[in-house]
Protein backbone atom coordinates (compact mmCIF):
# COMPACT_ATOMS: atom_id res chain seq x y z
CA UNK A 1 0.00 0.00 0.00
CA UNK A 2 1.37 3.35 -1.04
CA UNK A 3 2.30 5.54 1.92
CA UNK A 4 0.66 8.94 1.95
CA UNK A 5 3.79 10.81 2.97
CA UNK A 6 4.90 14.47 2.62
CA UNK A 7 6.36 13.86 -0.84
CA UNK A 8 3.13 12.37 -2.23
CA UNK A 9 1.08 15.14 -0.62
CA UNK A 10 3.25 17.79 -2.26
CA UNK A 11 3.03 16.19 -5.70
CA UNK A 12 -0.75 15.77 -5.38
CA UNK A 13 -1.25 19.42 -4.50
CA UNK A 14 1.19 20.34 -7.25
CA UNK A 15 -0.87 18.42 -9.81
CA UNK A 16 -4.11 19.96 -8.59
CA UNK A 17 -2.57 23.43 -8.81
CA UNK A 18 -1.32 22.87 -12.38
CA UNK A 19 -4.63 21.49 -13.58
CA UNK A 20 -6.52 24.38 -11.95
CA UNK A 21 -4.20 26.89 -13.56
CA UNK A 22 -4.63 25.24 -16.96
CA UNK A 23 -8.42 25.25 -16.64
CA UNK A 24 -8.37 28.90 -15.59
CA UNK A 25 -6.26 29.86 -18.62
CA UNK A 26 -8.47 27.92 -21.02
CA UNK A 27 -11.70 29.38 -19.62
CA UNK A 28 -10.39 32.96 -19.62
CA UNK A 29 -9.07 32.58 -23.17
CA UNK A 30 -12.44 31.34 -24.34
CA UNK A 31 -14.14 34.18 -22.47
CA UNK A 32 -11.84 36.68 -24.21
CA UNK A 33 -12.67 35.29 -27.68
CA UNK A 34 -16.39 35.24 -26.99
CA UNK A 35 -16.52 38.73 -25.51
CA UNK A 36 -14.38 40.35 -28.25
CA UNK A 37 -17.17 39.95 -30.79
CA UNK A 38 -20.63 41.05 -29.71
CA UNK A 39 -23.66 39.88 -31.67
CA UNK A 40 -27.34 40.73 -31.66
CA UNK A 41 -28.44 37.13 -31.19
CA UNK A 42 -27.30 33.53 -30.87
CA UNK A 43 -27.88 32.84 -34.56
CA UNK A 44 -25.36 35.52 -35.57
CA UNK A 45 -22.84 34.14 -33.13
CA UNK A 46 -23.35 30.64 -34.51
CA UNK A 47 -22.87 31.90 -38.07
CA UNK A 48 -19.65 33.63 -37.00
CA UNK A 49 -18.41 30.41 -35.43
CA UNK A 50 -19.24 28.48 -38.60
CA UNK A 51 -17.63 30.95 -41.01
CA UNK A 52 -14.43 31.28 -39.00
CA UNK A 53 -14.11 27.50 -39.11
CA UNK A 54 -14.59 27.07 -42.87
CA UNK A 55 -12.24 29.91 -43.84
CA UNK A 56 -8.49 29.47 -43.75
CA UNK A 57 -6.01 31.77 -42.04
CA UNK A 58 -4.13 33.01 -45.10
CA UNK A 59 -0.75 33.12 -43.36
CA UNK A 60 -1.03 29.96 -41.30
CA UNK A 61 -1.19 27.14 -43.89
CA UNK A 62 -3.36 24.74 -41.92
CA UNK A 63 -5.29 26.78 -39.37
CA UNK A 64 -8.74 28.19 -39.79
CA UNK A 65 -9.57 31.73 -38.72
CA UNK A 66 -11.07 30.50 -35.47
CA UNK A 67 -7.83 28.80 -34.44
CA UNK A 68 -5.46 31.53 -35.58
CA UNK A 69 -4.34 34.56 -33.62
CA UNK A 70 -2.38 36.10 -36.50
CA UNK A 71 -2.95 39.80 -37.11
CA UNK A 72 -4.53 39.26 -40.53
CA UNK A 73 -6.74 36.50 -39.08
CA UNK A 74 -8.00 38.89 -36.40
CA UNK A 75 -8.68 41.50 -39.10
CA UNK A 76 -10.64 38.95 -41.12
CA UNK A 77 -12.61 37.87 -38.07
CA UNK A 78 -13.48 41.48 -37.35
CA UNK A 79 -14.54 41.91 -40.99
CA UNK A 80 -16.77 38.81 -40.79
CA UNK A 81 -18.28 40.04 -37.53
CA UNK A 82 -19.04 43.47 -38.99
CA UNK A 83 -20.53 41.91 -42.12
CA UNK A 84 -22.80 39.59 -40.10
CA UNK A 85 -24.01 42.42 -37.87
CA UNK A 86 -24.61 44.55 -40.99
CA UNK A 87 -26.97 41.85 -42.26
CA UNK A 88 -24.90 40.23 -45.01
CA UNK A 89 -25.57 36.58 -45.79
CA UNK A 90 -22.94 33.86 -45.35
CA UNK A 91 -22.75 33.43 -49.11
CA UNK A 92 -22.03 37.12 -49.71
CA UNK A 93 -19.38 37.20 -46.97
CA UNK A 94 -17.61 34.10 -48.28
CA UNK A 95 -17.76 35.27 -51.91
CA UNK A 96 -16.38 38.65 -50.92
CA UNK A 97 -13.37 37.13 -49.21
CA UNK A 98 -12.97 34.56 -51.98
CA UNK A 99 -12.73 37.37 -54.54
CA UNK A 100 -9.96 39.05 -52.57
CA UNK A 101 -7.94 36.04 -51.46
CA UNK A 102 -8.75 33.38 -54.03
CA UNK A 103 -9.37 29.65 -53.54
CA UNK A 104 -6.76 29.44 -50.81
CA UNK A 105 -8.99 31.04 -48.18
CA UNK A 106 -11.52 28.23 -48.61
CA UNK A 107 -10.78 24.98 -46.85
CA UNK A 108 -13.03 23.26 -49.38
CA UNK A 109 -11.78 24.55 -52.75
CA UNK A 110 -14.36 24.96 -55.52
CA UNK A 111 -14.51 22.38 -58.26
CA UNK A 112 -13.10 23.81 -61.50
CA UNK A 113 -10.48 22.96 -64.10
CA UNK A 114 -7.66 24.11 -61.81
CA UNK A 115 -8.75 21.93 -58.89
CA UNK A 116 -10.04 18.91 -60.86
CA UNK A 117 -6.83 16.95 -60.20
CA UNK A 118 -7.15 17.68 -56.50
CA UNK A 119 -10.75 16.44 -56.39
CA UNK A 120 -10.57 13.49 -58.77
CA UNK A 121 -6.91 12.50 -58.58
CA UNK A 122 -7.17 10.26 -55.48
CA UNK A 123 -10.26 8.53 -56.90
CA UNK A 124 -8.52 7.93 -60.22
CA UNK A 125 -5.49 6.46 -58.47
CA UNK A 126 -7.76 4.20 -56.42
CA UNK A 127 -9.59 2.96 -59.52
CA UNK A 128 -6.30 2.31 -61.31
CA UNK A 129 -4.97 0.47 -58.29
CA UNK A 130 -8.09 -1.72 -58.09
CA UNK A 131 -7.85 -2.43 -61.82
CA UNK A 132 -4.26 -3.61 -61.55
CA UNK A 133 -5.06 -5.69 -58.49
CA UNK A 134 -7.93 -7.36 -60.34
CA UNK A 135 -5.63 -8.23 -63.25
CA UNK A 136 -3.06 -9.58 -60.83
CA UNK A 137 -5.56 -11.88 -59.11
CA UNK A 138 -7.03 -13.02 -62.43
CA UNK A 139 -3.63 -14.35 -63.43
Amino acid sequence: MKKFGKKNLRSTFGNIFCISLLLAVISTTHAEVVSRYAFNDANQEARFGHLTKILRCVVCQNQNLDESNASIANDLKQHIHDAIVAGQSDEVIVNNLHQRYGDYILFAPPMNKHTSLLWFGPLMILILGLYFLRRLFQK
Partner: protein
Amino acid sequence: MCIKPNYWPIITCIIIVILLGYGLTQDPRVLPSALEAKPAPKFELTDLFSEKHKISNSIFKEHYTLVNIWASWCTPCRVEHNFLTKLKKVQPKLQWLGINYKDDVEMARTYLSTLGNPYDYAVADEDGTFGMAWGIYGTPETFLIDKKGRVLHRHAGVINEKIWKKEFAQYIR
Protein backbone atom coordinates in the same frame (compact mmCIF):
# COMPACT_ATOMS: atom_id res chain seq x y z
CA MET B 1 5.36 1.01 -79.86
CA CYS B 2 3.31 -1.54 -77.93
CA ILE B 3 3.98 -1.63 -74.19
CA LYS B 4 3.53 -4.99 -72.45
CA PRO B 5 0.58 -5.07 -70.01
CA ASN B 6 2.97 -6.06 -67.16
CA TYR B 7 4.73 -2.71 -67.39
CA TRP B 8 1.61 -0.53 -67.02
CA PRO B 9 1.58 -0.55 -63.16
CA ILE B 10 5.22 0.53 -63.08
CA ILE B 11 4.64 3.24 -65.68
CA THR B 12 1.61 4.50 -63.77
CA CYS B 13 3.61 4.62 -60.53
CA ILE B 14 6.41 6.52 -62.25
CA ILE B 15 3.93 9.07 -63.63
CA ILE B 16 2.39 9.54 -60.18
CA VAL B 17 5.83 9.94 -58.59
CA ILE B 18 6.80 12.54 -61.21
CA LEU B 19 3.62 14.50 -60.56
CA LEU B 20 4.12 14.37 -56.79
CA GLY B 21 7.77 15.27 -57.21
CA TYR B 22 6.78 18.31 -59.24
CA GLY B 23 4.40 19.23 -56.44
CA LEU B 24 7.27 19.13 -53.95
CA THR B 25 9.19 21.71 -55.98
CA GLN B 26 6.38 24.23 -55.57
CA ASP B 27 6.65 26.65 -52.65
CA PRO B 28 3.37 26.47 -50.67
CA ARG B 29 4.04 29.92 -49.26
CA VAL B 30 3.79 31.49 -52.71
CA LEU B 31 0.14 32.29 -53.20
CA PRO B 32 -1.23 33.82 -56.37
CA SER B 33 -3.14 37.04 -56.04
CA ALA B 34 -6.84 36.83 -56.78
CA LEU B 35 -6.67 40.39 -58.15
CA GLU B 36 -4.27 39.88 -61.05
CA ALA B 37 -5.77 40.90 -64.39
CA LYS B 38 -8.70 42.55 -62.56
CA PRO B 39 -9.41 46.23 -61.87
CA ALA B 40 -7.73 47.46 -58.71
CA PRO B 41 -10.22 47.78 -55.82
CA LYS B 42 -11.45 51.33 -55.31
CA PHE B 43 -10.00 53.25 -52.42
CA GLU B 44 -9.71 56.74 -50.95
CA LEU B 45 -7.09 57.27 -48.27
CA THR B 46 -5.64 60.25 -46.43
CA ASP B 47 -2.27 61.60 -47.49
CA LEU B 48 0.34 60.66 -44.89
CA PHE B 49 1.67 64.22 -44.79
CA SER B 50 -1.56 66.17 -45.15
CA GLU B 51 -4.77 65.15 -43.40
CA LYS B 52 -6.88 67.30 -45.73
CA HIS B 53 -5.61 65.68 -48.90
CA LYS B 54 -7.20 62.45 -50.17
CA ILE B 55 -5.70 60.00 -52.68
CA SER B 56 -7.86 57.64 -54.74
CA ASN B 57 -7.79 55.35 -57.80
CA SER B 58 -7.80 58.42 -60.05
CA ILE B 59 -4.01 58.58 -59.78
CA PHE B 60 -3.72 55.32 -61.75
CA LYS B 61 -5.00 56.93 -64.93
CA GLU B 62 -2.38 57.08 -67.67
CA HIS B 63 0.45 55.89 -65.41
CA TYR B 64 2.03 52.58 -64.55
CA THR B 65 1.89 52.62 -60.76
CA LEU B 66 3.81 50.61 -58.19
CA VAL B 67 1.70 50.21 -55.06
CA ASN B 68 3.91 49.24 -52.14
CA ILE B 69 2.41 48.24 -48.78
CA TRP B 70 4.81 48.87 -45.91
CA ALA B 71 5.04 49.75 -42.22
CA SER B 72 7.66 51.28 -39.93
CA TRP B 73 7.38 48.24 -37.64
CA CYS B 74 8.09 45.86 -40.53
CA THR B 75 11.73 44.73 -40.61
CA PRO B 76 11.62 43.21 -44.14
CA CYS B 77 10.24 46.56 -45.34
CA ARG B 78 13.44 48.24 -44.13
CA VAL B 79 15.48 45.66 -46.04
CA GLU B 80 13.49 46.40 -49.18
CA HIS B 81 13.48 50.18 -48.76
CA ASN B 82 17.05 50.65 -49.95
CA PHE B 83 16.30 48.88 -53.20
CA LEU B 84 13.09 50.83 -53.72
CA THR B 85 14.92 54.12 -53.25
CA LYS B 86 17.48 53.12 -55.91
CA LEU B 87 14.78 51.78 -58.22
CA LYS B 88 12.93 55.07 -58.04
CA LYS B 89 15.90 56.81 -59.62
CA VAL B 90 16.15 54.43 -62.58
CA GLN B 91 12.41 54.19 -63.24
CA PRO B 92 11.38 57.85 -63.66
CA LYS B 93 8.23 57.02 -65.63
CA LEU B 94 6.88 54.72 -62.93
CA GLN B 95 4.48 56.29 -60.46
CA TRP B 96 4.84 55.21 -56.82
CA LEU B 97 2.10 54.86 -54.22
CA GLY B 98 3.16 53.89 -50.71
CA ILE B 99 0.48 52.46 -48.40
CA ASN B 100 1.45 52.74 -44.76
CA TYR B 101 -0.32 49.71 -43.25
CA LYS B 102 -1.69 49.65 -39.68
CA ASP B 103 0.98 51.97 -38.37
CA ASP B 104 1.47 55.05 -36.25
CA VAL B 105 1.39 58.06 -38.57
CA GLU B 106 4.16 59.93 -36.78
CA MET B 107 6.43 56.91 -36.85
CA ALA B 108 5.67 56.42 -40.53
CA ARG B 109 6.58 60.04 -41.28
CA THR B 110 9.82 59.70 -39.29
CA TYR B 111 10.63 56.48 -41.16
CA LEU B 112 10.34 58.17 -44.55
CA SER B 113 12.18 61.28 -43.39
CA THR B 114 15.06 59.18 -42.08
CA LEU B 115 15.35 56.50 -44.76
CA GLY B 116 14.17 58.49 -47.74
CA ASN B 117 10.79 58.72 -49.44
CA PRO B 118 10.55 57.01 -52.85
CA TYR B 119 6.78 57.50 -53.08
CA ASP B 120 5.03 60.06 -55.24
CA TYR B 121 2.01 59.50 -53.03
CA ALA B 122 2.15 58.18 -49.47
CA VAL B 123 -1.09 57.35 -47.70
CA ALA B 124 -2.12 55.83 -44.39
CA ASP B 125 -4.22 52.68 -44.03
CA GLU B 126 -4.50 52.87 -40.26
CA ASP B 127 -7.19 50.24 -39.74
CA GLY B 128 -6.12 47.79 -42.47
CA THR B 129 -9.26 48.26 -44.57
CA PHE B 130 -7.30 48.94 -47.73
CA GLY B 131 -5.12 45.90 -47.09
CA MET B 132 -8.11 43.62 -46.71
CA ALA B 133 -9.77 45.01 -49.84
CA TRP B 134 -6.60 44.24 -51.80
CA GLY B 135 -6.26 40.77 -50.30
CA ILE B 136 -2.86 41.29 -48.73
CA TYR B 137 -1.30 38.79 -46.34
CA GLY B 138 1.09 41.14 -44.62
CA THR B 139 3.95 43.50 -45.33
CA PRO B 140 5.72 44.14 -47.57
CA GLU B 141 3.57 43.51 -50.62
CA THR B 142 3.81 45.22 -53.96
CA PHE B 143 1.33 45.53 -56.80
CA LEU B 144 1.94 46.82 -60.31
CA ILE B 145 -1.04 48.66 -61.78
CA ASP B 146 -1.39 49.50 -65.48
CA LYS B 147 -2.62 52.72 -67.07
CA LYS B 148 -6.19 51.50 -67.02
CA GLY B 149 -6.12 50.74 -63.30
CA ARG B 150 -5.84 46.95 -63.64
CA VAL B 151 -3.59 44.83 -61.44
CA LEU B 152 -0.80 43.42 -63.60
CA HIS B 153 1.18 41.61 -60.91
CA ARG B 154 1.44 41.14 -57.16
CA HIS B 155 4.50 40.15 -55.17
CA ALA B 156 4.26 39.21 -51.49
CA GLY B 157 7.56 39.73 -49.70
CA VAL B 158 10.73 41.72 -50.15
CA ILE B 159 11.54 42.97 -53.64
CA ASN B 160 15.13 42.99 -54.74
CA GLU B 161 16.83 43.41 -58.08
CA LYS B 162 16.46 39.76 -59.02
CA ILE B 163 12.73 39.70 -58.28
CA TRP B 164 12.20 43.04 -60.03
CA LYS B 165 13.84 41.77 -63.21
CA LYS B 166 12.05 38.43 -63.08
CA GLU B 167 8.54 39.55 -62.16
CA PHE B 168 8.00 43.26 -62.86
CA ALA B 169 10.42 44.56 -65.50
CA GLN B 170 8.65 42.72 -68.34
CA TYR B 171 5.56 44.88 -67.89
CA ILE B 172 7.40 48.19 -68.10
CA ARG B 173 9.15 48.50 -71.40
